[in-house]
């Protein structure tokens, strides 16, 4: 599915994104930063869904858990230390993935969907129904965590433009990291599990361990996204753990194209920007309230016409071009 052009296109995309804060308004800069956070989230889920063949409907558990770790670990009115709170959030997500992974990975297919959903809903109700995380109101994070080495601040994340570039840098790093992981022995084995787990076991691969590692890596990266999201919004509430969030991120992956990392990024961009457009009351008036209906129709059309998602657009186009006698 990947053409030789892809790295060039991706580089251009990163350059354009990096230049955006010089021309864009604050609202849009913050919106794109939010999109990039969701892109990290979607890539983490794509590792599980698109490469390991495990469709999870509970990925918001990691996203929300990391946010709550930041909110709980941060001092009430002072800035938290980014290094320690981030490490704490990621370790919490990895442990949560390890513990739940031992159980959920014994199932597959529809049962895996149900069990992952069940675990994330359990976490949702833990935070919703107990005062531990502020109940249904959630908690505020008054100051953005500080990124210091010794006494020197590296980046001032209170500046929305700096936060934007910070997020862009992380998204790029996560993309390159996952590309590398997928190209390694470990990644090839994951793709083998997705294609034919039974055969991979017969070849001598202890597939459960591979799936558990994939589940933990995926959950930890979702935690990274959740941490930055909580940092950007400045508050957490149980909604970030809800199955709506799990469903949205799954939709982003499917929309963009499963099993292609840039597809997940593309899916996040299209999903959130479309949501922003369709729910704009000054454009669509009272119908804007029903933006989910239009979004649903859009997702159905993409699923019907582009089984490989939006990234399939390129290859479908090339094939047609070739079939009509052109040079692809």
């Amino acid at each position, binding site marked *: 599915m990947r053409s030789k052009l892809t790295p060039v296109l991706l580089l251009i995309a990163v350059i354009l994104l990096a230049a955006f804060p010089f021309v864009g308004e604050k609202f849009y800069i913050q919106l794109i930063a939010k999109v990039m956070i969701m892109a990290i989230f979607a890539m983490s889920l794509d590792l599980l869904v698109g490469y390991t063949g495990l469709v999870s409907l509970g990925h918001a558990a990691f996203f929300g858990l990391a946010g709550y770790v930041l909110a709980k670990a941060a001092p009430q009115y002072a800035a938290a230390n980014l290094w320690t709170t981030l490490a704490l959030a990621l370790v919490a997500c990895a442990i949560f993935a390890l513990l739940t992974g031992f159980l959920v990975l014994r199932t597959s297919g529809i049962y895996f969907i149900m069990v992952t959903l069940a675990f994330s809903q359990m976490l949702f109700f833990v935070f919703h129904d107990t005062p531990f995380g502020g109940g249904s109101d959630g908690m505020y994070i008054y100051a953005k965590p500080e990124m210091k080495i010794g006494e020197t601040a590296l980046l001032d994340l209170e500046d929305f433009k700096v936060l934007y570039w910070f997020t862009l840098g992380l998204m790029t790093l996560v993309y390159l990291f996952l590309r590398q992981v997928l190209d*390694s*022995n470990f*990644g*090839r*084995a994951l*793709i083998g599990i997705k294609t034919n787990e039974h055969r991979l076991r017969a070849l*001598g691969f202890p*597939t459960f361990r591979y799936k558990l590692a994939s589940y933990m890596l995926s959950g930890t990266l979702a935690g990274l996204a959740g941490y930055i999201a909580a940092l950007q919004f400045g508050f957490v509430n149980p909604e970030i753990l809800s199955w709506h969030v799990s469903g949205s991120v799954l939709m982003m992956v499917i929309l963009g194209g499963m099993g292609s990392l840039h597809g997940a990024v593309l899916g996040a961009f299209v999903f959130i920007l479309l949501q922003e457009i369709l729910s704009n009351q000054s454009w669509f008036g009272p119908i804007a309230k029903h933006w989910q209906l239009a979004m649903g129709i859009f997702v159905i059309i993409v699923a019907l016409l582009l089984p490989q998602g939006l990234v399939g657009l390129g290859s479908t186009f090339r094939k047609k071009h070739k079939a009509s006698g052109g040079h692809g």
Partner: protein
Amino acid sequence: MADPILCVEKLTKLFGGLAAVNDVSLELYLGQVHAVIGPNGAGKSTLTNLISGELAPTTGAIRYLAHGEGEFDLAGLSSDRISRLGIGRSFQKTNIFLPFTAFENCRLAAQSRQQRAWQIFRGASRYADVNAIAEQSLQAAGLAERGQVNAAMLSHGEQRQLEIAMCLATQPRVLLMDEPLAGMGPQESLRIVALIQKLAADHAILLIEHDMDAVFAVAHCLTVMVNGEVIESGTPQAVRASAHVQEAYLGEAHGDTHG
């Protein structure tokens, strides 16, 4: 004769009340092809699945002399563990990784022998030793020229060859081959028969096959199964001459087995 490398002892597998494999014993030796024949439903594939760990036997033992690691009872071990102990199997139904090239299928199989899964910062294609094993097994199975072809684009016969190549890439000592000739043309069959004869030199092979010409061409030892039970076992000549077998299988049922 040397000691057997693998002994199946009184193996039984019950599915509910049905004994798919009933009190079966046989021995495999390095350098020998042991063929198992019998009509459809005789329990041949179940027997393979019991040895390879896809199924756990109800009773009985599978004693295996692992290279340098002593003796194991394979009964109840997981299929990935059994594979790593040196027992490779090829499947009756072609069971390859279609999105990969033929070479990549073999590379993945060879990779299973390396304990390097967690070196995630090194590209999978950059291990020279693994690549070499993959290349050798493709060559052994007669697919050297087809390595870069996508597995889905290979002909049916070539996919069967790839199935065997992947099995070889795991460098097994015991080969369990479940109908390697299924659906092959006469030319392709001859090539696989020659390959089995070559592999027999340094492997112990359990061959399940319906093609009697192939079986009698390669087998050193023959076991006949009917309804989950062994009705005869011995050299091909002895089995061919057995009135018991002719009555139960070769005589009346020979025509049905291809259907």
